[in-house]
Each structure stands twice: as C-alpha cells, then as structure tokens.
C-alpha cells in the first residue's frame, strides 16, 4: 500500500469514529471505537514507516483557495514521516487505554459505577453536586453520557488534526490544522465536567497561551510568506535564504516563541502542569506524547527546514533556552509530589533537552559542520521519540494509580507494587527509561545529546564553545537530578510501606490498561536495545536538514567487510573488528550493533557504546550472579527471609518511613536559593509555653516562571481589564460619547493617512 492511501485510510477511520460516536452512546461501542482508533494509528504508523524507510514521500495539492493565492497542499516528507510515525506509535496504545478507561479519573469511575448499578435515574451524590456546581440545571443523565460522547468525538478530531499539522505543505493548512488542534485540546480539558471548577480555568489558560503562540507563529509564517510571495512551504524554503539577517532573527524569535509555547519551553511553560492536572486521564497521555511534539515539529520545520539560520545566534539561543527548560523542569519535577505535576515538569525537561539538541544542530548548520549537525538532529529526534514513548507509558501508569487509589500525592502512596505487580513492572520500565538508565531508550538519546555537546570543541568561536560547555554541564546536572527524581517516584509510590487508608481497595489494572503499558514498555526497551537500526532511519529525516548523513559516523558498517565503506579509515574499522564489533555479522541484518561517537581532528577520541551488547552482558551477569550465589556460594546454606532491621521498634509504622517530601528535601534545601519559598511557622501551645500541641510550618513555593512571567502577565491583563471595566458603568450618555470619540479618532487617522 502506498503512503497516500494509508493516510486516506487514517482520515477515513477518524471520520468514521466521529460519526459512530455521534450516532450511538459510546458506552455500548467502547470496543468498536477503540478498534477504530487502533486501526487509524496503525495506518499512521505504516504511513510514517513507509515514507521513512521506503522513501515513499508524496506531495499532493488539494484545493486552491479562491481569493487567496494559496493552494492547500498535503505533503509528507521524511521529517513529517518521523513525527507521523511516532504519533501513530503513541496513539495506538492510547486508543486501547481510552477504550478501557472512562473519560476521566477516579471521579469518572465512581460515575460509571453509579450509572451501571442504578440505571440512569439515580446517580451518586457527588455527580449531582458537581453538576450543580457547573451550573448545569439539566438532569443527571444529561451530565455524563453526552460528555463521554463529546470526548470520543473530540479525540478522533484531535487525531486527525495532529496528523494534518504534520502533513500540511503550506502555511494556511498548517495554521488551520494547528488551530483545530488547539481548540480540540481545550475542549477535551473542559469536557471533564465532574472535576473542580478550577480546571476549566486551566483549559482557558491552555487555550489563551496556545493562541498567543499561534499568533506569533502565524506572524513568523507571514513574514516568510511575504518574503517568498507564496504560502507554499516549498516556495518559502527556496526564498528564505535571501532574507535579511534582521528578518531572519524576527522569524526565528516569533516561531521559536510561538511553537515553544506549545512545546512548553521556559518561560512559557506555566500552562503545562495546570493543563495536565485538569485533563482527563485518557487524554493526558496524548497531550504529553503527541501534542508536545507539534511545538517541536514547528520549531524544526521553520528554523531548520524552511529557513536554516545563516549564523549561530538563533541556535545558541535555542540551546540555552532548551537547557534552562531542562534544568528548571527537572528541579521542579524532583521537588513536586503530585505525580501528574511531576510528570508535567519532567515533560518540560525532556522538551528542553530536545530543543537543546535542535539548537546545537542549528549552530552546527550555521557554522558549516554538517556532519555534527546531523548527529545533533538525530540525537534530538531520537530523544523526542523516546520521550513520547515513556511519557505516555508513565501517564498510563499514573492514570491507573489515580483511578485505583484516588490520589496522586506520593506522600500518601507507597507499597503499591504488592497489589499491582504488573503495573509496577511496566511503570518501572518507564522510570528506568526516563531516568536514562541502560539498556532503556532514554540512555541512548541522552548519551548522544551529551556527546554532541562535547563535540562543540570543533567550533571556532570561543563564546559558542563556552555556551556549549555550560549547557552540557546543565544537561548533565539535569540527567543526575532525573535519576534522583525517578528513584523517588518509583520508590515512594510502589515500594516501602503502604500509607493509604486501609479501606481503599487497590487491585491490578485491567488488561485494557495493562496492554498499552506493556506495548510501550516493550517499545522503550526495543528503542533502547536497537539504536543501530533506528539511527539510520532517523538519519534519512535529518539528512536534508543538515545536508549530511550521520549514519556512517554513528553506526559504522561493522557488519560489512572492512573495505566496504570508504568513509572510515580501514585501520579504524579493523581495530573495532578486533574488539568484536562484527559479532553477529552473519546472523543479523544492518550495519552493526555499536554506536560510535568520534571526536574530530582536534580531539581524536572515540566513544563507543552498544546497548545491544550491554543487554546480553547484563542478562549474562544476572544469570551468573544467580548461579554463583544460589548454586555455588549458598549451596550448603539454608536461605532465610527475615524482616528488615528497624532498630528494634515494636511496630514499624508507615508514618515512620521516608515520605516523598523528605526524600527530595535535600534537593529542595540546596536549591532554595532558586525556589525562594516564603515560610510561615506557627507554634500552638496548651496550658503553658512548653507544652506544644502543634508546630505548623508551611512553605509556599511559587514557581519561578510563575513569579517572573505568569504573575506579571496576569496582573497586567487584570489591570487592563479593570481599566476597561471602568468604562462600563451603564450610563447611556457615556456610551454615546465613546461612540462619538471613536468616530472622531477614526476620522482623524483616516485624514492623516489620506494627506500623507
């Protein structure tokens, strides 16, 4: 099947899904809808793979807009293919998950139970209350069924709009799809009606910041389009090189800001945790796994493809912003105890790493190091894919935890692995991946990214080198903090003693939730173990951006005979062959199993890494350890399982074990200079001053970005709104005066322009 057919099938399936869910109550058709979603995402994956691996790209003008000199074009090049592919990979398990899970979290579960048990007339008190709070006077039945229906309609719409953004071959289609996607995201958040009212605000925040970003991005596009005289991407690309430096900066800043908002880069990341908390649990994985990529796609499309920067400035700025995002995101992720908010901050971190990679690539392109640029882009794209995979997985897990326990607070969780061993296992795979531990996928892409930073030694400008060095250090710190953070996440939620109320029943997730997690965990492992097969594929996408191929540099053809490739010195290949790099040559296809990172002429160091061999060695060592300990060292000894040593206390209670707050407190204390919390302490006493009943301490930590960006913006908007409100005092005469004044102003302006 060729690519356009697959794409058509995808859109057809999405349309079918929308019609079906409009036609019948989705509660009866959950399975059918899930299947539709799965098939659609499979079509997407196949289309992406087809374009990427078989090179079957296409460009198809659809419809010329009357009045505008624009043709809507659908176009799938290799860069789009990567994003289409990863979107499909994420949407597939997400569809299964959405089919198994109701639209929202714990409250949604309660609703479902109420409905099933008592038919449609008698619904639980909580629902009635929430409906009243929403101010909807309609019946309780009206409160939930259409909401589920709306949810599936919006979801399929979102699928289609995301794909359309990647497929857009011109500015108009791109912006239309982008708008549709933004609005659908907002609708999906606000349709979770049974949540607290504050969440609607988060939805509006997402919409408002998204629109601000869209506006900036649109202006950037328009600047390009005006310069090119066309709205078509192809025309823009060919004309972009002629832009003046100032205009290039303007386009870069507008697009980087505009798309950065969607991606969640600092300083416009404040909407992200709020939106994640508000979003229904079936939607959050899509939000994190698929829609964040859109912003990064936009940045890459405009600044690397349409208008490659002519000098290093924009790239360095992207690098710095990316690193700051990574660092700030990780700091807040480490210190937050709400699983969803923690994951949101960690998304900011990962997006930051990707953006830093893009920035590095842009710098290398501008400074004419195409080979390095290719490596940087490959690393960034690889990390983007990985992030989509493990973040989706983790959000499935968090959704399950919340549904089971009714809380996301790590201080209240603990010991869950005893009740949900399989969820715990899948979640562990996700945490290992995101903490960048081998042999999982996060390790490969972070390794590549950090290695790329080291290669900055080849740059000629000392300033740029300094920026690279600092950013490299920042990213390294981020990686270290990530380990702390996810040790805490896993340990505090799944290990240790159970802190939950005893009445709270916790049981293993259903297969509908487990299967998607298992699929993603397997993918995380596969992307970690087989980087040598993935890097060449990604290379085809980055090749046109960088103007060079990274495949031969990163994955040398060790499986070929030593003379097969002339880009590598034969002696070098020989050396590696002697080390055993060609092991598996006759069994496996491909280039080899070793990822290389060679320093340039100035620093002739070679960093080699192979997670494929690593996992073999790991498994072997594990087995060996087992054999040595179990069969040899302790063969004559009886193995006994004893209780942990607790100092001899009579009864070790859950409140005597480390809380998540306690675990991350050292980080918090060290970085208090950054957080600058306001501390309130209060001591309550009884009888006399020395009998204290309570020491109450509260530390309020306002997010740095909130304090520096969000709150000033909010204050300004509120001030402006209050100014406007002052005009509206209801006196008819005044309104007439406003109308008159406006008329006069318009007249004056018109006259002025007329005369000039």
């Amino acid at each position: 099947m060729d690519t356009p057919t697959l794409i058509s099938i995808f859109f057809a399936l999405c349309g079918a899904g929308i019609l079906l869910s409009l036609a019948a109550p989705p509660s009866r058709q959950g399975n059918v809808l899930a299947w539709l979603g799965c098939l659609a995402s499979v079509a997407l994956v196949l289309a992406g793979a087809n374009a990427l691996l078989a090179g079957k790209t296409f460009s198809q003008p659809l419809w010329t807009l009357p009045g505008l000199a624009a043709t809507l074009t659908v176009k799938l090049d290799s860069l789009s293919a990567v994003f289409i592919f990863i979107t499909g990979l994420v949407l597939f398990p997400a569809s299964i998950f959405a089919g198994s899970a109701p639209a929202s979290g714990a409250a949604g579960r309660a609703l479902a139970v109420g409905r099933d048990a008592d038919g449609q007339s008698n619904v639980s008190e909580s629902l009635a209350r929430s409906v009243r709070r929403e101010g909807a006077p309609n019946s309780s039945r009206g409160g939930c069924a259409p909401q589920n229906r709306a949810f599936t309609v919006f979801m399929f719409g979102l699928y289609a709009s995301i794909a359309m953004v990647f497929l857009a071959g011109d500015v108009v289609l791109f912006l239309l799809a982008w708008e549709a996607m933004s609005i659908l995201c907002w609708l999906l958040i606000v349709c979770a009606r049974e949540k607290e009212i504050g969440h609607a605000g988060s939805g509006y925040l997402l919409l408002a910041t998204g629109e601000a970003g869209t506006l900036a991005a649109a202006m950037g596009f328009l600047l390009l389009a005006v310069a090119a005289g066309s709205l078509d991407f192809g025309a823009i690309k060919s004309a972009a090189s002629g832009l003046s430096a100032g205009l290039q900066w303007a386009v870069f800043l507008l697009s980087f800001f505009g798309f950065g908002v969607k991606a969640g880069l600092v300083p416009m990341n404040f909407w992200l945790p709020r939106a994640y908390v508000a979003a229904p649990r079936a939607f959050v994985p899509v939000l994190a796994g698929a829609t964040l990529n859109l912003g990064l796609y936009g940045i890459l499309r405009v600044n690397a493809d349409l208008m490659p920067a002519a000098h290093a400035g924009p790239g360095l700025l992207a690098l710095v912003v990316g690193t700051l995002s990574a660092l700030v995101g990780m700091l807040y992720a480490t210190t937050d105890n709400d699983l969803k908010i923690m994951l949101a901050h960690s998304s900011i971190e990962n997006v930051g790493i990707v953006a830093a990679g893009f920035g590095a690539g842009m710098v290398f392109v501008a400074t004419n190091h195409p080979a390095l640029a290719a490596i940087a882009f490959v690393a960034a794209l690889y990390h983007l894919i990985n992030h989509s995979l493990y973040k989706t997985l983790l959000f499935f897990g968090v959704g399950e935890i919340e549904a089971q326990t009714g809380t996301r607070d790590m201080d209240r969780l603990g010991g869950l692995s005893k009740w949900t061993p399989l969820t715990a296992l899948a979640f562990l795979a996700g945490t290992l991946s995101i903490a960048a531990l081998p042999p999982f996928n996060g390790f490969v892409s972070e390794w590549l990214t950090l290695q790329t930073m080291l290669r900055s030694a080849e740059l000629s400008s000392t300033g740029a080198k300094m920026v690279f060095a600092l950013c490299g250090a920042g990213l390294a710190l981020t990686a270290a903090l990530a380990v702390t953070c996810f040790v805490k996440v896993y340990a505090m939620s799944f290990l240790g003693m159970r802190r939950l109320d005893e009445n709270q029943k916790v049981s293993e997730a259903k297969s509908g939730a487990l299967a998607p997690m298992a699929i993603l965990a397997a993918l995380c492992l596969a992307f970690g173990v087989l980087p040598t097969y993935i890097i060449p594929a990604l290379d085809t996408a980055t090749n046109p951006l960088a103007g060079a191929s990274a495949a031969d540099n990163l994955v040398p053809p060790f499986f070929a005979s030593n003379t097969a490739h002339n880009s590598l010195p034969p002696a070098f290949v020989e050396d590696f062959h002697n080390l055993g790099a060609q092991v598996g040559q006759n069994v496996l296809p491909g280039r080899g199993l070793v990822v290389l990172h060679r320093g340039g002429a100035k620093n002739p160091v070679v960093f080699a890494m192979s997670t494929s061999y690593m996992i073999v060695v790991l498994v072997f060592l594990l087995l060996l350890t087992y054999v040595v300990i179990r069969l040899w060292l302790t063969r004559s000894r009886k193995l006994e399982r004893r209780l942990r040593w607790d100092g001899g206390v009579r009864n070790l209670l859950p409140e005597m074990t480390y809380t998540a707050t306690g675990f991350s407190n050292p980080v918090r204390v060290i970085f208090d200079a950054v957080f600058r919390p306001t501390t309130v302490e209060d001591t309550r006493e009884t009888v006399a001053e020395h009998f204290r009943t309570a020491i109450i301490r509260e530390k309020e930590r306002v997010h740095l970005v909130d304090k520096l960006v969000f709150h000033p913006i909010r204050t300004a908007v509120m001030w402006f709104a209050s100014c406007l409100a002052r005009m509206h005092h209801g006196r008819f005469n005044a309104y007439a005066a406003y109308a008159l004044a406006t008329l006069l102003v318009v007249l004056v302006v018109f006259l002025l322009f007329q005369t000039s």
Partner: protein
Amino acid sequence: MSQWVINGIRAGIKTTAYPAKPETAAGVTPGLPVGGDYPANNVNSLISLCPTRVFSDSDGQIIVDRRRCIHCYRCVRGVERPVNWEQSYEWGTVRDGQHEFGQPFERSIHICVVDAGDCGACLNEVKQLNNPYYNMHRLGFFITPTPRHADVLLVVGPVTDHMKFALKKVYDAMPAPKRVVAVGACALTGGVFAESFVCAKGVRDVLPVDVEVPGNPAPPLAILHGLLVATGRKAPAMKDADPTNLHE
C-alpha cells in the same frame, strides 16, 4: 593539627599484652571469690552473708557460682574470716561445653552490642575495649551498629520487659551462624534485678547463650576473654560449679 599527631606519639603504647601475655597492671579486675576448703564453721556464715547466693556447700567444701557474684564484698569486708579472693580475669565460660567454636569465627568478627537493661557499668566496660589500653580492633573484633553484619551478639543487662522484644528482633535479624555472649552478672542470672517483675533472669530466659562472662561489671579483660572464647581462640575458664544444677 600536627600537634595531635605529636601528642599521640608522645603518649606511647598503652595497649595491654593480653592475650599473648597476662596483664599484670593493678586495677584491671575486681576479682572473684574462690571456693574450696574452708573451716567448717565458716561455710555457713559465708553462705548466709551473700545476698545473691554465690556460695553453696558441698560436703564441707564451698562451691562458688561465679556467675552470681555482684561484688558487694560482704564476704570479705568487715567480716572476721573473709573468703579467699583471686585477682583473675579469664572468666569466660562455655555453656555445657557443647559448642564447636571455630571455622566461621576464626578471623575478624563483628559484634553487635545490645543493652538490655544494663546499669551502665558493663556497657562502659565494653566501651573501654575501644580505648588504647585494650584496643580490641587489633584482635579483629569490631563493633557494628546493625545486627545484619554481626557475627556475635553481646548482651548486657538482665533483659527488661521492654527490651525483650527488641533483643529477640536483633537476634532474629542476625545471619547464621551466630553466637551470643552474655556479659555481666545481670545478663547471666539477673543479678540484683532478678526479682523485678519487669526483668527476665538473664539472657538465657530469652535467647540461647553460648558464652558467659561473669562480673558486675565484667572488666574489659574478662569481656575480651569471653570474645576470644567465642571465637575459639582461648580456652574457656574452668567452672567451679555447674551452674545448671545450682539454685534452679
């Protein structure tokens, strides 16, 4: 800081020659009463003098249960015919001689010390083993805070009610093979606290004991001897009386 080094060197070597040679310095042990032949009229008065029933009469001979002696000196001081007193310190005994010490305990061992209601003296004497005079590290004895790493459990005190559970937990947490060394009269027989309603009559009420070190408190050298016995590096002391048969 260099001054500390100079001072340390200037202090010289204080460490005892024990166990290679016997320690002869004054004041290292309070000593213990010696049994044997006593004038007939002395036997009964001695038995009645002792508040903890150390002495018993066996065919006109006095048998001393060293484990019970609490050093009240009422059989020596202020009496006309005092009991014989010996300034020994190699007091560590093995319960019933049934233990095969050796192989796993031959090299360095880690000791977990549990205070099960001790008056502070025995514990202080255990602490003295770390000071330069005794320096137990030279013999490969190390104190460990966690029972997980411990080979030997050293218990002082009569085992109070509140500590019984903790003591059992410590013992359970220790990996096998393990030895229990009970130090001090209280840990052996309950000492003066044996009558208390919240005390056990020694560690044996709670745990199996391998080596017993009498004394109230057992002086550091006696504890050292007990540890050497537990590791099979010294012969246990001869027992004047079989403690299992007396008063029980």
